């Protein structure tokens, strides 16, 4: 579609929208406009504000300042229902279908304007028509349960169209699709474009962005950086725009010569999840795992800790091959894993701080009569409270009463208390305040100094670059590069994370 044909008025305009969460400025005067019949790509690093922008557009979050203009009229979008009424619909990476309802029922699930009685015949005719428009063959009578992710996405798109969506937001729709499924999705996107729908396409894959988008908008630190037509934006310029986040004062690592290799992994793989991961971590070294969200770094961590064990490749500790099939195996080999999910997997919130700290090593606190040595436990808790500067009135307080940053420290302490040789930290500073973050960085440095091998998985690029001695980059379950501290520039790492040519393993 050319400029002359374009409707002069955008369907929706985001004007100078800001949104703050606690100490994080997620959006800082971001702007974006979507015209009918355009595919608009939104790109940016982790934490650039893409998700928040989508949430603002779909009424999930309200902007602190700035406005949304729909069809030339300023509008407040207070809920997803409001957004839907204005024709703005988002579909996500993991589609949300009701597995026990049929395809047709799923498509018409949110229709409230059809009266109380479901007219099955009407519903089936209408959903057939929608799928025809999309050019998709799908048995509309079958339950959604058996559908592939790609088919479920199609159902979501059909649902959006049946709601007369004019703006379709697709958040990383291709991340779990095969190459063929992606092609099919792109054909659907093409037909949407031709029917005048504005598609906002969020993707980490540069190839796809530069294939399908008419225009590209780059966000960084919640700010609008640039919007350009596809032909007028070079890829290296795009990458340069995405990096260079403001980092502020960062902790200064003390660099030193690392000791012998503690953990070595060769060709580690888990079918359908990740593959071909090879690295070695030495005592006193911090190995960073960089990558965009969905790069499967956490899955490698979970495999090393035996939660979801790898099914190919080898793991060696001190040069001896080991088998890690459960967290117990991993702990026996001196591996600890502090999870990114503090609530789901991490802490037992109603239990006291002291009880949480001793949880993985309860046997050490069990006396000859099989009773818990609560005095020892309390002594340990006090030790970690001081060492990790956990801010709490009492070590008997429930862990749930602590702030996020202090919970994170309790979780760190609980694993340090197992005396690990390899410590895997998964997003140790996500969602915690600046002070606690600095504490965690200091702790990581201390641990490395004391000879621990640390694997640092972090989506915060400046953090990985700053804290790591070497950086391993993953993209969609594969290892794309390993950089030394000097070579690990933001541009190089991001290029490797986005699968750009020219990024080679060093």
């Amino acid at each position, binding site marked *: 579609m050319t400029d002359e044909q374009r409707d002069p008025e955008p369907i929706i305009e985001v004007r100078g929208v800001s949104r703050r969460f606690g100490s994080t400025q997620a959006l800082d005067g971001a702007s974006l406009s979507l015209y009918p019949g355009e595919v608009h790509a939104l790109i940016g690093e982790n934490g650039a504000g893409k998700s928040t922008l989508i949430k603002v557009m779909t009424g999930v979050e309200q902007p602190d300042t700035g406005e949304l203009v729909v069809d030339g009229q300023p509008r407040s979008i207070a809920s997803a229902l409001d957004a839907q009424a204005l024709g703005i619909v988002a579909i996500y990476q993991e589609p949300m279908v009701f597995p026990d309802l049929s395809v047709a029922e799923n498509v018409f699930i949110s229709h409230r304007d059809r009266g109380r009685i479901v007219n099955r015949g009407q519903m089936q005719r209408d959903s057939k028509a929608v799928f025809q428009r999309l050019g998709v063959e799908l048995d509309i009578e079958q339950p959604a349960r058996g559908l592939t992710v790609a088919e479920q996405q199609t159902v979501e798109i059909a649902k959006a169209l049946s709601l007369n969506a004019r703006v379709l937001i697709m958040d990383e729709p291709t991340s779990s699709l095969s190459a063929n499924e992606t092609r099919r999705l792109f054909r659907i996107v093409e037909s949407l474009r031709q029917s005048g729908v504005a598609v906002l396409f969020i993707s980490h894959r540069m190839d796809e962005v530069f294939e399908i988008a008419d225009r590209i908008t780059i966000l960084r630190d919640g700010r609008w950086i640039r919007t350009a037509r596809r032909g007028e934006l070079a890829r290296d310029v795009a990458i340069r725009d995405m990096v260079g986040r403001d980092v502020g004062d960062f902790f200064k690592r003390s660099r030193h010569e690392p000791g012998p290799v503690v953990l070595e992994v060769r060709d580690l793989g888990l079918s359908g999840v990740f593959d071909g991961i090879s690295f070695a971590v030495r005592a006193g070294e911090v190995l960073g795992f960089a990558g965009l969200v969905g790069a499967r770094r956490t899955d490698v961590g979970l495999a090393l800790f035996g939660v979801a064990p790898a099914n190919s490749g080898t793991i060696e500790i001190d040069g001896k091959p080991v088998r890690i099939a*459960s967290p117990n195996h991993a702990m026996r080999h001196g591996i600890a894993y502090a999870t990114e999910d503090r609530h*789901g*997997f991490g*802490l037992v919130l*109603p239990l006291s701080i002291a009880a949480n700290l001793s*949880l993985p090593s309860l046997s050490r606190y069990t006396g000859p009569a099989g009773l*818990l040595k609560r005095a020892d436990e309390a002594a340990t808790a006090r030790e970690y409270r001081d060492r990790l500067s956990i801010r709490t*009135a009492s070590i008997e307080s*429930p862990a749930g*009463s602590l702030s996020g940053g202090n919970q994170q420290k309790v979780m760190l302490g609980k694993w340090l208390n197992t005396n690990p040789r390899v410590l895997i930290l998964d997003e140790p500073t996500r969602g915690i305040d600046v002070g606690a973050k600095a504490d965690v960085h200091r702790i990581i440095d201390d641990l490395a100094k004391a000879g621990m091998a640390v694997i640092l998985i972090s989506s915060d690029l400046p953090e990985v670059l700053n804290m790591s001695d070497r950086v391993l980059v993953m993209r969609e379950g594969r290892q794309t590069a390993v950089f030394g501290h000097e070579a690990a520039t933001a541009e190089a790492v991001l290029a490797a994370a986005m699968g750009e040519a020219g990024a080679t393993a060093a």
Partner: protein
Amino acid sequence: MTAGPVSIVTSRVRPEQVREASLVVIIALLIVFFATQIDGYLSGTTFTRISASFAIVAVLAVGQTLVVLTRNVDLSVGSIVGLIAYGVGTLLGSFQDLPPVLVIGLCLVLGGVLGAINGVIVSWGRVPAIVTTLGTLAIFRVLLVELSGSKTVTTESLPTWVVDLPRVDLLTIGTLDIRPLVVIALAVAVVFQLGLRYLPFGRRLFAIGSNPDGAQLVGMPVKRDVFLAFTLSGALAGLAGFMFLSRFGNITVAAGLGLELQAVAAVVVGGVNIFGGIGSIGGAVLGAFLIDLLSQSLTRMEAVSEFTRDALLGLLILLAVASDSVILARLRAGWQSARAREMARRETEGAVVG
């Protein structure tokens, strides 16, 4: 540094303890209320009577607490009580000279075996506890019907020590008699409360119920521990079966019918979170006492029919659960913000000093 009154409260008392304290207050208020309504209520006899039926439910509530803490529930305990009471009663009818220790041990073991069946199905068969124990509730009951052939155990067939046990006065304070069944119940409660606090197994039960994934991640034997919780619940139900036999003597196929509901109610009223991870034996025992106090006292009030009594009990359970999620959440929030203010105050003071 002087700590304000708020900080003293918040550093010594936890919201969960407030819950137990409020139960004590409610029980006290109820006693005062009934004393004004029923003539001669405030006598030892009243409490001797309450304690006799309370003892059985309390023992069941202790076992139920272990199971509920792990985010499960054991509905089969009423049937286990009936089955054990009948089985062991029949056995005693034929072998009058069995030593008491052996008889009680047998009840514990048989009950444990029945509980272990629940445990295996829940832990390794991955059948939800509510379905599993609903199934075994029916199966154990049918087993009892088949075994008995609709015959009953009678008091006359039992050895005298069993029949007399509930009526022995260990200690008499005024008109209040302390009898063996209550002593057994309280001993069980103390042992298990200490166990929850001082055994790694007890700690693990809390961890499993409050965060099953997290428990798995720190390498806890989650399945084995859940299995053990069910086994212990079964064993305690076996013990309760013996107490039932001893108390009533005449055992029909309906023995222990509905006891599981009283046990679950006691646990819930006692502040054990039905979603696991929070609670104490002390609370559950208080809950059992409260329920029994209500049902025994309401029976003596002529204005209250049997049906009203059941309805009031149901209302109490609903209130308990609702207060669990609403009031306790409020308490926790208030407690935490008081804590946060206190922390902030200390930090600013610390900054001034340092």
